[in-house]
């Protein structure tokens, strides 16, 4: 029996409303507990602290009392790369195909048992979304009882990262299969961070599906590598052509500007027609 690839391709993505995000950290912990992320005695060295979802605090750089802050949750961006061909910065460099781009879902996977720990992908990722298991994961006695079987605990010496809770997609599809449905509903597959966010700042769905909220929020332009048409929406480091699938929305201009590097004077030119410059 020849199958098509389960209908048309999805392109799962995320929209984070930075004006709603309060920096509470629920997404980080929801992610950690969903994905069996280990913890160690000292997690204050953030450069070796595994947080698939990390909330950055950014400021407008002005002095008291003109200061403003904004929290920016940063999962893996699941970059599609130039032209959305799947050549994300990390996938293209992995020597052993331990990370790959799934064209049917747009998700960048990480296979822990394939990874041999060269860390090239980490160097290639400008978002620092990838984490290395410098230590053996260890849980206090008895605590391993809360580990979920849906995500395998990682061993020492491999790289890990946000998977958009892909296992939830698998589970949703399993349910669809036994109910003999062809595809899943928008609400059936939501990431753990989206589900937990008490502020409702995170929206998750299929960027290829006009019925999905994420699509309506950012209006991704399929002919322009998913560039948002919504002028309040932006992506991190879009100019590098990584083509991320995580979008941010903010009313605040300085926040949108902080999303990318601009030479002097460049922002003034693009800020008002951001997203429309292809027209």
């Amino acid at each position, binding site marked *: 029996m020849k199958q098509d690839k389960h209908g048309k391709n999805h392109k799962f993505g995320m929209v984070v409303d930075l004006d709603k995000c309060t920096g509470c950290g629920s997404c980080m912990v929801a992610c950690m507990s969903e994905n069996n992320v280990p913890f160690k005695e000292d997690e204050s*060295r953030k*450069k*070796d602290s595994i947080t698939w979802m990390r909330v*950055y605090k*950014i400021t407008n750089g002005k002095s008291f009392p003109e200061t403003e802050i904004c929290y*920016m949750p940063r999962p893996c961006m699941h970059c599609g790369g130039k032209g959305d061909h799947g*050549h994300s*910065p990390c996938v*293209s*460099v*992995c*020597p*052993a*195909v*331990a990370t790959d781009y799934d064209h049917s879902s747009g998700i960048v996977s990480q296979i822990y048992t*394939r*990874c*041999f*720990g*060269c*860390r*090239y992908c*980490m*160097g*290639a*990722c*400008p*978002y*620092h979304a*990838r*984490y*290395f*298991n*410098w*230590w*053996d994961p260890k849980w206090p006695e008895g605590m391993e009882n809360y580990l979920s079987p849906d995500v395998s605990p990682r*061993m*020492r*010496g*491999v*790289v890990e990262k946000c998977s958009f809770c892909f296992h939830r997609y698998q589970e949703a599809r399993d349910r669809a299969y036994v109910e003999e449905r062809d595809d899943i509903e928008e609400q059936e597959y939501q990431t753990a961070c989206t589900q937990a966010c008490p502020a409702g700042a995170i929206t998750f769905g299929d960027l290829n599906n006009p019925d999905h909220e994420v699509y309506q929020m950012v209006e991704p332009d399929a002919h322009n590598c998913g560039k948002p048409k919504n002028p309040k929406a932006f992506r*991190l*480091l879009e*100019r*590098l*052509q*990584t083509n991320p699938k995580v979008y941010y929305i903010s009313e605040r201009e300085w926040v949108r*500007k*902080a*999303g*990318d*590097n*601009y*030479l002097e004077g*460049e922002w003034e030119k693009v800020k008002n027609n951001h997203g429309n410059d292809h027209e």
Partner: protein
Amino acid sequence: MDSALIPKGAKRCPFPVFALGIAVVGVVLLWGVYAMGLCWFKGLNQTNMDDYYGFALWIWADLAVIAIGGGAFFTGLLRYVFGIDELKNIINLAVVIGFICYSSALLILAIDVGQPLRSWFIFWHANVHSMLTEVAFCLSLYFSVLTIEFVPLILENRKLDKVPFFHNLGHNMHGVMAVFAATGAFLSCFHQGSLGGVAGVMYGRPFAFREGLLVWPWTFFLFTWSAAAYGPCFTLCVLKMFEKITKKKLVKDNVVHLLAKISGWMITTYIIAKIIDTVYWATVTAPSQGQTFMDFYSNNPFYGVWILVLEIVVCGIVPAVILTTQKFRENRKLLLVAIILGTFGVCLNRWVMVLQVMAAPVMTFDTWAMYIPSWQEVATTILPVAYGVILIALAYRYLPVFPQELELNADQQD
């Protein structure tokens, strides 16, 4: 005491002195082996690397030894393929150095990966689009070429050479060495380049990213060229060290000057290319990604513009001028300055192209990452140096590494 093994007619220091020297270096070696054991058994938490600085001292050491080991492939290419016969007097040294450098590189890589027992995945499950895959393949293949090139030299040992099989094997291998050398040069061009490509293809890292030709970023060509250019500098450095330690002249000046001259012209062409590359990157590539040249050289305690000046002017233009000018390169002191600067320069280039890439922030709200290696990293980096010293000392003592040695030291023979 070990005279039976020492090349006929050559004068070597008394065995106890030699043994003592080896023992001293051996202690350093053991220290490195201990650190290596820690890294293997306890994991990479023994290092000070982190998620920002995933490539650190080791990868630099790796790239650096491969670059300075480039003398082997380049001299081999000149000697066997281009037929510059004088170089036969220094080719053995180049090969031994190359062998040490490449075996060290492989050893360092084996410590550097998080899962050494899975290293073979890079071959079996190769992603052919990854520069690192290319590095791994060419590196291991080229190492086998170096081994092939090294074997005949070993077989020339006075005792081994007595065995007809070994004698004939050495002879026959010499006969087809050009084929091996040519293959080695081909492999070397690719993996030296791929190492450059490793940095250049990271389009998420504006400091490293370079446009290029087909699948190869400009750094690919720059790395190959620089290894060829600077590699001989290191070969000459080692030669000078030998001459200093043994208090003997081992290679004739005309050979040294020839290699120095070739190296000088290579450096000259390389440094012009490097300047063009830097200017293009600073004025076109990086600005297209919204970053200015100074973004990469300020707001951090270490990576200032000085590093670029040091690399290009002090360690690039200066040795180039010295080595291309006959008067200068024939001045012993200036020659020494030039080859040391050259060796340092290529190491510095590798440092910058690996570590500064990791250190420079890309997201606007990110910060420079700084790092100081742990003692385990230092020890495992010194380990190959100690191993190299021992191997090269053994080679010098027991193998006819320098064909001109006897001729040049006729008065000292016993």
